[in-house]
């Protein structure tokens, strides 16, 4: 992974009205690498993905930061130029695969849209892509509508449409959350294999530490619009250095768990953007919080092992 990064997000900040949603988020992803963004619902993962695609809802503004795609800053290029980026250099898949496909259009035509050609002209290429994402009987499936396919198959269709023009970056926003556990594992395997084969940089958004463990090379843990801790997955799982990461890890169900034993749950709730104050945003729920945590924002700082942590108590956790 010594390649130049395919995607660099620097200091991204987003706001809705006066309230900041995302505050100085940054990370990078190399070709062929899967980087997970993990955090509880509402912490700003989806808006971060939309900001990278430049598809933010009208109400949300980018207030700072840069997005470099293959070294080029795309955060201020005109919408016309951005259309040449979307689907070609950078693609996205969604949480509800069936909702992400137009119910009235055949899946083949929707995949062909990414090639900017009518299906008739690129049928062979689409069929090859369908085979590549593991759709059996592609000759029949290509002319079917989303309602004739299962959720897992629809997600494979979405992956096909996202990767057919060989983009450098794929953003996957909770791609398996709506699927059954067995299908979930198949889709994650598929993403992993395609990322390596095609050298695609994958940003995988999830709220599930189990998914991170399955697929991610590196992980960024988000809390309330900020990155709490980031680094190689193995390192972070072995020794979390942020109390929030530690609690998230303790909440993963394990096979060795006694059935019906209580999972560790994090007390309290995530503050909403209008409640963000000074200091560490996790302080109100943190077992280690002290006066300094409530007053001062802990900076995201390197700990020397390739990891970044935003906690005053990181050393004490070693």
């Amino acid at each position: 992974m010594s390649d130049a990064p395919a995607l660099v997000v620097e200091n991204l900040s987003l706001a809705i009205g006066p309230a900041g949603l995302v505050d100085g988020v940054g990370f990078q992803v190399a070709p062929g690498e899967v980087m997970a963004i993990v955090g509880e619902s509402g912490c700003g993962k989806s808006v971060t993905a939309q900001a990278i695609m430049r598809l933010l809802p009208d109400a949300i503004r980018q207030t700072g930061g840069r997005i470099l795609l293959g070294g080029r800053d795309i955060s201020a290029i005109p919408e016309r130029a951005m259309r040449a980026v979307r689907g070609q250099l950078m693609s996205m898949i969604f949480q509800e695969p069936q909702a992400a496909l137009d119910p009235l259009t055949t899946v083949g035509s929707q995949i062909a849209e990414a090639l900017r050609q009518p299906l008739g002209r690129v049928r062979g290429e689409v069929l090859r892509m369908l085979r590549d994402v593991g759709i059996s009987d592609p000759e029949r499936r290509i002319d079917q509508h989303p309602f004739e396919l299962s959720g897992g198959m629809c997600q494979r269709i979405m992956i096909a449409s996202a990767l057919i023009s060989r983009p450098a970056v794929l953003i996957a926003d909770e791609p398996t959350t709506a699927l059954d556990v067995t299908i979930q594992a198949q889709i994650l395997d598929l993403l992993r294999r395609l990322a390596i084969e095609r050298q695609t940089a994958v940003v995988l958004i999830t709220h599930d530490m189990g998914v991170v463990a399955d697929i991610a090379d590196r992980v960024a843990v988000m809390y309330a619009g900020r990155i709490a801790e980031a680094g190689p997955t193995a390192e972070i799982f072995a020794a979390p250095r942020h109390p929030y990461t530690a609690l998230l890890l303790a909440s993963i169900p394990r096979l060795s768990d006694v059935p019906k034993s209580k999972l560790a749950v994090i007390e309290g709730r995530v503050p909403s953007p209008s409640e963000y104050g000074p200091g560490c945003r996790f302080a109100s729920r943190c077992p280690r919080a002290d006066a300094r945590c409530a007053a001062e924002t802990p900076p995201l700082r390197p700990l020397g092992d390739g990891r970044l942590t935003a906690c005053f108590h990181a050393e004490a956790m070693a």
Partner: protein
Amino acid sequence: MIRHLAGRLGQALVASFGVLTIVFFVMRLSGDPTLLLVPEGATAEQIAALRHALGFDRPLFVQYLSYLADLARLDLGESLVQRSGVAGIVAERIPYTVELAAGALVVALGIGIPAGVAMAVWRGGMVERLLAGFVLTGQSLPTFWSGILLILLFGVHLRWLPTSGADGLSSLVMPAIALGALTMSTFARMTRIAVLDELSRDYVSAARARGLSLGAAVARHVLRNAAIPVVTIAALEVGNLLAGAVIVETVFAWPGIGQLAIQSIAARDFLIVQTVVLFVSVVYIGMNLLADIAYAVIDPRIRLDR
């Protein structure tokens, strides 16, 4: 799909039979037309003789059964006033009403649907506010009032268009606008809601993430999805158009079936009124069946669900 259509057809037949029955009895509540037909100064015996000849001395229910029997033989009867076949009299007027309704539908669809799409796509801006004002105007002016305003402005004041009658395309313009205005507003509002609803769906974000412009996503995906609720309204609106035609034809002296119906009610020419009502129900049923077929054409989930 075929079974569904057959079911709908059955329902529609029952409904129009009901309407026909109501019209038959309501028309007769106000008395029979004998007095309007006899010459002035006729004796009571002459009146009774005519009443007997026309069959109005029979009990109402017997008259009703005899009407149904004629109808079953596709015999629509004779006009009491004009002394000629009802079928011919009504058929002569139908093309005018069809022309008027078609003109109104062109106004309603041609302006209403693009206006609705524009209001949804450019929501929250100047475009939406301007169009919303326009739509509200079309919706709040009563048909007879907007008809009279149009005549005063374009017919009397500017002298651009003829004030009444059916003589070529120029005479159709004002009646079509007066009749189509309300339907145009309905289409604009419904289209706006349907398009807004579709725009918020994930498949629109997904299409844009694939590199489609918002306009291309609307053209390729949103319009077809939004068409489904709009088609439902369109079928219902044709009924409203025919009802509105009664007023517009009277205001503009347009010789269609609406005008004929008003004249015939005044003359108690029962069979003509009943035949006009029958025609309107048949058109209404036809439109609803057409809508059902349109759903199947638009939506594969209906088409393939046998």
